[in-house]
């Protein structure tokens, strides 16, 4: 039998991961160095990616090394950046000053619940930075130092930052419970931005960033490759429905530019969701276009720095302008919508060359996107369904017993809660909610957000995914749930592993895969397969009967 490695889920025994002691050790946290055990950290950025982006200190190194090959004046560099960020973000200043360590956030983090490492309590994660802030930037801290919670900026602190700020998925769950709204995502962003000044980043984020910069998407799909991919999807769609689709690409003068995370182009089950979008647009006759240049809705710049986020996001408006579209629709993705909802207009707007989004089918004007000119696909589809513009046969999904995972960012940075639920209830007859403390604004992260969803980080992904996975298992046992729907590309990639591990038998699906499977298209042939090319339960029997007669 082959030995399993720390980057495979089989390496970890469930009984062992479930042995969680939420009680911290005896010794204080201040002097405990981070334990870089395999499976709990992510490979560092390859120098070529930093070079292509013009970012500091490209070199070959590993967090397991003693020497991280930092510039001589690394303390000075961090201090300077720290000061700059304190001057740029009121959030950072207030979050440094106001925490009372009440502990309400402590057991709200999925990494703490699933692992018990005290530095994964949001309060301590923030203290890793706050202790340096006290020591270096406050008068009292400069005088009293350690006695009032200050710490000197040492190499161990930098290592600890690297370890723990790449163990935060920026999911904002702690921020819901904090009486002062302290948002650890914000602190993690600041810490990562500081670390990047020393060339400390992870390849799983920076390679997509470099790809996105050059090819327009995280996966590095070149224009002709994207065309092939979409045409390949259309072949499958034709097999399932008998309907032929020609995907519009870089089409000038289209009414709508459609942008989705590139994960939907590459990996199942995201690909099925992508087919779902295409079938929907075909069915309603939407005049839209894909773009190969702005072929990424997701934005790993969000996990890097404000400038990199802006750099990658800029292409969406630029392309909308070049193509002369009226407005933009965005696909199902989590952190993509954090950027589109809370950052895009501020960074790269005003989008005064676009129109306020108006559904050509229902006439609904999306006033909530009056300035950004970009709407979420579930807002668009929910409106279509409400106006009876889609012919739906939910019975087609009767073999599916579905639950819905609110993705962190649409839930806590947007409030997109009812739109996907309305759609699911319209296209499925069997929908069951997970327990209330694990959905909506209290939803649990998949454990792989903010650039942590890579296999070498498997232990942390399984631990971080445990609260979500356990809630899925609960509805699996109680209601026989067999599919988990979500509106996030990272979820569609990482929750597959989480479900296989914590709730085996539950598949992951996008909302628009469910829509497309239930949608009765004009001129379609009788459906015998779903989009995964799996035979539908009734169809199998029918075929057998046909054979007998």
């Amino acid at each position, binding site marked *: 039998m082959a030995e399993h490695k720390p980057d495979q889920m089989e390496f970890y025994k469930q009984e062992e991961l*479930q042995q969680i002691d*939420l*009680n*911290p050790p005896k010794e*204080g946290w201040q002097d405990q160095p981070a334990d870089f055990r395999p499976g709990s950290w992510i490979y560092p950025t390859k120098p070529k990616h930093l070079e292509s982006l013009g970012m500091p200190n490209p070199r070959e190194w590993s967090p397991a090394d003693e020497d991280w090959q930092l510039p001589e004046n690394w303390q000075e560099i961090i201090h300077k950046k720290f000061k700059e960020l304190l001057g*740029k*973000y*009121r*959030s950072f*200043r*207030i*979050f440094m*000053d106001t*925490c009372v*360590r*009440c*502990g*309400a956030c*402590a*057991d*709200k983090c999925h990494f703490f*619940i699933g692992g018990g490492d*005290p530095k994964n309590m949001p309060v*301590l994660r923030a203290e890793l930075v706050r202790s340096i802030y006290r020591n270096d930037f406050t*008068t009292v801290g400069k005088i009293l130092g350690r006695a*009032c919670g200050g710490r000197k900026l040492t190499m161990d602190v930098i290592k600890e930052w690297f370890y723990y700020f790449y163990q935060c998925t920026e999911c904002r769950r702690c921020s*819901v419970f*904090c*009486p*002062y*709204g*302290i*948002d650890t995502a*914000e602190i993690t962003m600041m810490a990562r931005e500081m670390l990047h000044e020393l060339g400390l980043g992870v390849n799983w984020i920076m390679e997509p960033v470099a790809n996105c910069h050059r*090819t327009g998407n995280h996966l590095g799909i070149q*224009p*002709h490759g994207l*065309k092939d991919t979409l045409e390949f999807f259309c072949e499958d769609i034709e097999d399932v429905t008998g309907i032929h689709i020609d995907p519009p*690409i870089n*089409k000038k003068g289209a009414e709508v530019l459609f942008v989705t995370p590139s994960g939907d182009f590459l990996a199942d089950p995201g690909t099925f969701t992508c087919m779902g979008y295409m079938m929907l647009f075909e069915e309603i006759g939407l005049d839209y276009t894909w773009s*190969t*240049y702005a072929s990424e809705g997701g934005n790993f710049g969000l996990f890097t720095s404000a400038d990199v986020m802006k*750099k*990658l996001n800029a292409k969406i408006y*630029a392309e909308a302008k070049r193509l002369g579209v009226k407005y933009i629709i965005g696909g199902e993705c989590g952190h993509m919508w954090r950027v589109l909802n*809370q950052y895009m*207009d*501020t960074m790269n707007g*005003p989008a005064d060359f676009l129109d306020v989004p108006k559904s050509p089918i229902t006439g609904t004007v*999306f006033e*909530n996107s009056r300035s*950004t000119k970009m709407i979420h696909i579930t807002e668009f589809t929910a409106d279509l369904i409400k106006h009876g513009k889609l012919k739906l046969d939910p019975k087609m999904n009767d073999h599916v017993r579905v639950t819905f995972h609110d993705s962190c960012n649409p839930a806590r940075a947007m*409030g*997109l809660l009812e*739109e996907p639920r309305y759609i699911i209830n319209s296209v499925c007859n069997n929908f069951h909610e997970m*327990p209330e*403390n694990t959905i909506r*604004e209290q939803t649990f992260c998949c454990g792989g957000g903010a650039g942590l969803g890579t296999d070498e980080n498997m232990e942390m992904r399984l631990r971080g995914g*445990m609260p979500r996975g*356990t809630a899925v298992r609960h509805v699996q046992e109680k209601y026989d749930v067999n599919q988990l729907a979500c509106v996030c590309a990272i979820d569609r990639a990482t929750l597959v592993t989480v479900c296989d591990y914590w709730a085996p038998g539950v598949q992951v699906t996008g909302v628009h895969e469910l829509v497309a499977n239930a949608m009765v298209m004009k001129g379609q042939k009788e459906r015998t397969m779903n989009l995964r090319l799996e035979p539908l339960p009734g169809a199998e029997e029918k075929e057998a009967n046909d054979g007998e007669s």
Partner: protein
Amino acid sequence: MTAILALGAILILILLAGFGSQVAGLQVVFGVAVPYAAIALFLGGLVFKVMSWARTPVPFRIPTTCGQQKTLDWIPSARFDNPHTTLGVIGRMALEVLFFRSLFRNTKVDIRPGGRIIHTPAKWLWAAALAFHYSFLVIFIRHLRFFTEPVPGFVKAIQSVDSFFEIGVPSIFLTSFLLLGALGFLLLRRLVSPQLRYISLANDYFPLFLLIAIGTTGVLMRHFQKTDIETIKAVAMGILSFSPVTAGGGALFTIHFFLVCVLFAVFPYSKLMHMAGVFMSPTRNMANTNRAKRHINPWNHPVAFRTYEEYEDDFRDKMKAAGIPVEKE
């Protein structure tokens, strides 16, 4: 260890004031210098800190949304938990400041054998926090009777409500004991819960011990070692009118008064600034009008990105071969 450090600091402060009250020459220090220094440190620090926050830009609109957004007309939105109007934000802030809305959501996680994760509501922290803060507010208002002549009606009214039960002579104030009870709970949970003990700093124990000492000396003065109220009022009025009186008032009063001065002095330099910070937290005091109204970032500097022209130059041949339209043939 951190708790002992904080307790030690408080004991030293108590001894200092106790000693000061016995030495005639030091009465000027404790009755005049200390209160004015405390007021200066309080006001100066508070203004400086709040100004430093206010001067720092809010580059992005980043509310933490805790309910349904405002989108389609037929989907009801969460007016306060995900506000999209100024009125909604005021409502959200009022719920936060007056009723500790976010803390009310608190849950406790238990992991059962077999890996079952149980979330149960946990309201004790919320209840104790609310009890402490409101008691403190009432006590603060009650104390205005020492600083005003004539004493305003609302101060008298609050005082009479607070001593409603008329137990003892002088009758006890409900809030004095509520305050001490709540503080006791907040201290005990820090000492007993292993997680809280782990995250607690001396900075967390110090204000707790300080407030407990202030509350205890206050109760002692009212009910056990009765202190002459007229003398105290003369001291208080003297400070306010910038003609300080150094007429003592006894050891207990000196300690009580000194500790209150310490509370004011450390306030702006400690976590107690959460009082001001809660009003300015960008995840709570902004409306989720993100896509409807453009938010301006004052330092939004230009960032170079790869233009379409550069992209097409790189991939033109491949695009043409695949039949994808290009700008330049």
